[in-house]
């Protein structure tokens, strides 16, 4: 996994000409990686397999507000001139649908085994700082506890990460409050900052360095480093949204019967969108998938959500039978009990849950309201 904490002062960075990015992706493909990057589908920037930089959303940007996401033309040809969309890298490391067990009926009874799957080797292009933080959060959940999820772990170990520093922010971004961005500090193999003339590239790992060495790039000039700094600073200044995280753990857990939960429940549709777009939400369910003769049965794991009524079903009744209790579960888990469980907040400040909420519920606003009324 990638590591390192490059400092701006003594950063040794190279300049990757725009045209050389395809060369870099080609080298990754030669090493057996499938390159996943941002691309446009159904009027949104999503992550998918990309064949070349032609698949990137060149010259597009996004405008985000609570409950609103729109793509817009830029007045330049920037390849990474937008922030995060409805997808996150979670869908590649913790796939939305996957087989966890195969059972086959034999003469001597059931044979139960792991599915035979060669773990894909992904190279992620365009991972933002908040997303690096989200991957680190899911590492804590799936790979660093008493039990390790083998599917996550092998995909994660295989992944090559090319981060991209944000040079603009959306109205829904609040990574500065969560101390996760916008600067990519660790957790990548390579990190790019886009300039009009190319990319300033930082190295975050041995294998990142090895890959870059194959391209024989020159060092970035002081002027280019300065311009990269300025571009990154634009994102910092554009971030307006704030979440006051001081004592948020106790604030939420000491106010479990707060009237604000009722008020949120009158707006929340319990649609699960926030949990589906969240890059850290990890809840799942398993289902049986027998073939017609029931001679072969797969257990399939799919993403689930604490907003689904069935999620807390047990013999004798549903534990969280109201929207009030389900929203409370989500928010208190995300911002409070997550810390008890994994030693880190479950929120990275990406703002997806705000943008993709059909009624525009904004958790930063809800926390502020809980704070005000206590």
């Amino acid at each position, binding site marked *: 996994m990638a590591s390192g904490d490059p400092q701006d002062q003594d950063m040794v960075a190279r300049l990757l000409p725009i045209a050389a990015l395809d060369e870099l992706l080609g080298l990754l493909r030669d090493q057996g990686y499938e390159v996943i990057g941002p691309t446009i589908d159904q009027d949104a920037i999503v992550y998918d397999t990309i064949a070349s930089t032609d698949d990137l959303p060149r010259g597009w940007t996004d405008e985000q507000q609570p409950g609103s996401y729109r793509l817009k033309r830029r007045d330049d040809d920037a390849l990474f001139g937008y922030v995060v969309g409805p997808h996150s890298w979670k869908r590649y490391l913790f796939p939305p649908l996957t087989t966890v067990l195969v059972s086959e009926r034999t003469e001597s009874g059931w044979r139960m085994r792991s599915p035979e799957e060669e773990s894909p080797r992904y190279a992620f292009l365009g991972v933002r700082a908040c997303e690096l933080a989200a991957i680190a959060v899911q590492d804590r959940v799936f790979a660093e506890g008493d039990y390790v999820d083998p599917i996550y772990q092998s995909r994660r170990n295989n992944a090559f990460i090319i981060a991209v520093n944000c040079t603009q922010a959306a109205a829904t971004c609040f990574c500065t409050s969560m101390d996760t961005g916008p600067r990519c500090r660790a957790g990548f193999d390579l990190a790019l900052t886009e300039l009009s003339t190319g990319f300033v590239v930082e190295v975050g790992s041995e294998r990142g360095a090895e890959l870059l060495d194959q391209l024989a790039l020159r060092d970035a000039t002081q002027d280019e480093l300065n311009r990269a700094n300025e571009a990154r600073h634009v994102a910092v200044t554009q971030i307006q949204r704030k979440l006051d995280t001081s004592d948020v753990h106790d604030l939420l857990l000491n106010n479990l019967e707060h009237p604000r939960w009722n008020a949120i429940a009158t707006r929340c549709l319990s649609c699960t969108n926030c949990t589906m777009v969240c890059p850290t939400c990890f809840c799942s369910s398993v289902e049986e998938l027998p073939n017609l003769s029931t001679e072969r049965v797969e257990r399939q794991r799919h993403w689930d959500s604490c907003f689904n009524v069935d999620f807390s079903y047990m013999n004798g009744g549903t534990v969280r039978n109201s929207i009030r*209790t389900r929203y409370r579960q989500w928010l208190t888990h995300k911002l409070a009990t997550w810390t*008890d469980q994994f030693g880190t907040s479950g929120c990275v400040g990406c703002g997806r849950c705000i943008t993709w909420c059909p009624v525009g519920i904004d958790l930063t606003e809800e926390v502020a309201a809980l704070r005000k009324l206590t």
Partner: protein
Amino acid sequence: MTEQLTTQSEHPNYWVPHPVVIEKVRQEVPRVATYELAFVDSATAGDYRFAPGQFNMIYVPGVGEVPISLSTDPNSRRTWAHTIRTAGNTTHAIEQLGAGAMIGMRGPYGTAWPLESSAGGDLLLIAGGIGLAPLRPVIYHVMAHRANFGRVTLLYGARSPDTMLYRDESDLWSRCGVEIETTVDRASSDWQGNVGVVTLLLARLRELRIQRTVLMICGPEVMMRHTVKAACDRGIQHDQIWVSLERNMQCAVGLCGHCQLGPSFLCHDGPVFRYDAVAPFMAIEGL
């Protein structure tokens, strides 16, 4: 806070169960039976150990998987008993399959009753309905190590006399030094015993040595809440009380998110908790 446990050996994929055969089925009461499960692979059987209070995931291919507490003697070495009430699809399938069928089992999972740290003290076990099943291994442990404990009392409440579990074992338990008091919600014509909720037995219990008592409760959540209250009325503190909780569980290893109660994953941090750890969260409805 919880004891050192036997846990599943290093396994590459926690979803893969061990094949087990239902060796024997004993109908306990209507819709509740005890299933003796034997590992197909003898090496697995040799390595398998559990602590009273822990549970297994029992899997029926094509139907589903359910968490079931071990209700067997912790010294079992050949078959492991699980007392199961037929309630949903998977338990119904287990009932239908019956003796001789092969199913899957993985575990043991979760925390255990505090038997090591309770040595020297009095044990007060309070069970409601099928909640006696997860406490049965405690009784076996006590019988095997009777000298380690002071007074051992079981208060057991059931809906009616014909739903009381393990009635044919109660003589053996008594002979081995477990004092047993029972009560039913609804008496039948031939019932000579107590009628009423189990908390009444606790209120009436004589010679309760408050300081040295460890209370272990298993039953429906509402019953446990009332029992805790009755225990506190007798002067027992929250840190002397242990409860076994239940929630929807799918992965059993703290990764699917279903069984959360506040900061705890019941599968991993429970099912057995010291009451003071969960009291603030059990008090909130719908958490």
